């Protein structure tokens, strides 16, 4: 699926960007002389050879914080997307294969969940539940899975009416086999594209929650939390909040560029099968 010679230039840019951020988040901290919590300078100290992009609001090295922040964001968004896909795809496929009342119940519950604005719903839920990373990821995943459910149900409905699925039913195969062996392999390419897209959305969503103070709690910080912590500096002409902001933007852009090229090849659902 990822072959350098087949990629468009935009996909290559996205791919390189993604590799860069992953290395930045996972290899970077080993190269940094500081830890994330260590206070090594003054509040919002200007960049120097000691601290390449300066210090944050408490005098911690901003570059090191940025590495850990990126790592948090990638991990949380990745986990949330993975869970939302497992949930959404399995339920969506099952609804499409089984039809009848299970489909009705699932689809209407999803409609119900989708009718409430996601961010507001998350704010309400998170203000009631304990402020815990796992809760945060689960809430994001469940809300996101409604979109995945819609897509995978639509894709599966298209595949489920094909003769080879009917042949499997006539053989007497169970729902499990039909979902995992007959439908999933044929729905893979649109789903992979959607995975990248949802990952970018989950990243933005988690960052917004952290920015509002409902996400990651101090002393840990993801990119959204870092913007919140440093946003006062902007008034004094200090760029500290812009670095995590730019990281979010570039990361989202890289993922989108890569996903676009996959989508382009699979925009027709049938083309993805061949």
């Amino acid at each position, binding site marked *: 699926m990822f072959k350098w010679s087949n990629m468009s230039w935009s996909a290559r840019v996205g791919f390189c960007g993604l590799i860069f951020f992953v290395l930045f988040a996972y290899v970077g901290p080993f190269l940094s002389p500081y830890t994330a919590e260590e206070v090594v300078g003054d509040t919002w100290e200007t960049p120097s050879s000691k601290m390449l992009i300066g210090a944050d609001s408490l005098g911690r090295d901003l570059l090191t914080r940025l590495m850990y922040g990126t790592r948090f964001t990638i991990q949380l968004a990745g986990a949330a997307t993975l869970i939302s896909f497992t949930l959404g795809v399995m339920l969506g496929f099952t609804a499409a294969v089984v039809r009848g009342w299970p489909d009705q119940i699932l689809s209407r519950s999803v409609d119900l969940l989708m009718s409430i604005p996601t961010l507001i719903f998350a704010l309400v839920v998170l203000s009631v539940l304990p402020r815990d990373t796992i809760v945060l990821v689960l809430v994001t995943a469940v809300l996101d899975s409604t979109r995945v459910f819609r897509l995978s149900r639509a894709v599966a409905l298209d595949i489920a009416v094909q003769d080879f699925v009917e*042949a499997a039913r*006539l053989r007497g*195969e169970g729902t499990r086999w039909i979902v995992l062996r007959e439908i999933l392999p044929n729905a893979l390419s649109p789903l992979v594209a959607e995975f990248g897209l949802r990952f970018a959305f989950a990243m933005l969503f988690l960052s917004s929650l952290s920015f509002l103070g409902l996400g990651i709690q101090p002393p840990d910080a993801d990119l959204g939390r870092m913007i919140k912590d440093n946003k006062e500096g902007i008034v004094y002409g200090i760029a500290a909040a812009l670095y995590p902001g730019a990281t979010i933007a570039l990361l989202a852009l890289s993922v989108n560029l890569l996903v676009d090229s996959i989508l382009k090849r699979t925009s027709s659902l049938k083309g993805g099968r061949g």
Partner: protein
Amino acid sequence: MSDNELLLKIDNLRVEATTYPPGEPPKELVIVDDVSLTLNKGKVLGLIGESGAGKSTIGLTAMAYGRGGCRITGGQIWLKGRELLSMSHGGIRGVRGAEVAYVAQSAAAAFNPSHRLLAQVIETSLKRGMPRRQAEARAIELFRKLKLPNPETIGERYPHQVSGGQLQRAMTAMALCPKPDLIVFDEPTTALDVTTQIEVLAAIKDAIRDENTAALYITHDLAVVAQISDEIMVLRHGKLVEHGTTDQIINRPREDYTQRLVSVRKIQKVEAAEGAKPILEVRNITAAYANGLTVLKEVSLAVAPGHTLAIVGESGSGKSTLARVVTGLLPPSDGEIVFEGKTLPRALKDRSKEQLRILQMIYQMPDTAMNPRQTVESIIARPLQFYFGMHGAERKRRTVELLDQIEMGAKFLDRYPAELSGGQKQRVCIARALAAQPKLVICDEVTSALDPLVADEILKLLLRLQAETHVAYLFITHDLATVRAIADSIAVMFKGELVRYGGKTKVLSPPFDDYTDLLLSSVPEMQLGWLEQVLSKRRMAAAGN
């Protein structure tokens, strides 16, 4: 106007296309290779060949058009003394529609569903400056000529409000309306039932003779083209095989390939004697779809072990629904399905694994009947594992055995369906059905998506497998030649009811009921003048009443 005036002349035509197989460098394909033809005013030239022969591509080049990535890379196309390929874009647009028109295979897909027929029929004429009143009068005159019912008002209908055969005739009217010199007919009757095909064929033939229009008639059915064309060109793999008058091609074919095409469908199964206790009995089945439409009314049939029961009828006769009822996909509202003396549960989910195993199905479209993401091995091996719990080496050995049985062999184990030809795909589907060691196989139009020579091979294979494994077939088809080839007994269905049922010789010999007579006499025969004979016979019969 002289009839010998040259209209279209194609010299050394070469058409190429680029394909992009996934994961491989792009490949250049030659679609049409060095084909030349000439067509005089008012004459009909038949282009015939199997799929991939390049016949549609040649037809479209008469309008200087290349479909989906096809490039005309060599040759010249002369229409009325002008060379089309060297003309400007605007010049070619002036030719299309006005001087050369096109009739597509599927009229249902070619008409815009949200406009009335009349508006679409006269569209080109209006664009070419014909006054609306005159264009409408011409359209109505053409509707009458093409024997459409209510010619004055049928134009007010939308495409979905007329039948498939009527739509195909409306499309012919659309092509004829701007008085073109040449019409390209691309398989205009292939998607129609035989009883409808004969009407459309007769209407097209009369209309183009009256209008003195020349035509390129593209089809894969030699018997059809023999009725309508003056000359025939046989094509294969983009090359010309044989070109001659219709009489010469049909009665004295020179090339080996043409001889095989002419003699296709000459297999005849000798009807097996009745006697054995039936393996499948369908008793008084009535079935309806969720919208309340009754599609089967009190149908009763029986199939003996090792025998073939062919179910014949046109589209909408309920023959495929009957297959769905027998398999349990559509539980009947009334009646019984009895297999080897035991009543089968009506719904699929209530049937046991054993009951599912002994009844297998083969589909019309082998492309969609196999999971494109599974290899040939996993497709054939799954029933072995599912029904018999076979694993590892034993399963593989049996899979190869089945592949040998369908004359394909072990080298196909790792192939994906996309890497197989149409005939090979259908063979794999047959192997998958056989893997379950069924007692009855339902064959739903298994040869109608295949080229005639390939279809013949598949029928021979099915007959051989029947002799070897003593399996019974429930063979659903609209093609009477196939029925003659494979059936022991025949059931003729019309509008959900059984109109005639019995042994093959009995069903196919007179006295006939009206519908069977119509059906049998509508099957095109490979002889000149067949169409006229049938039509005059029918006219006499109608006058006699």
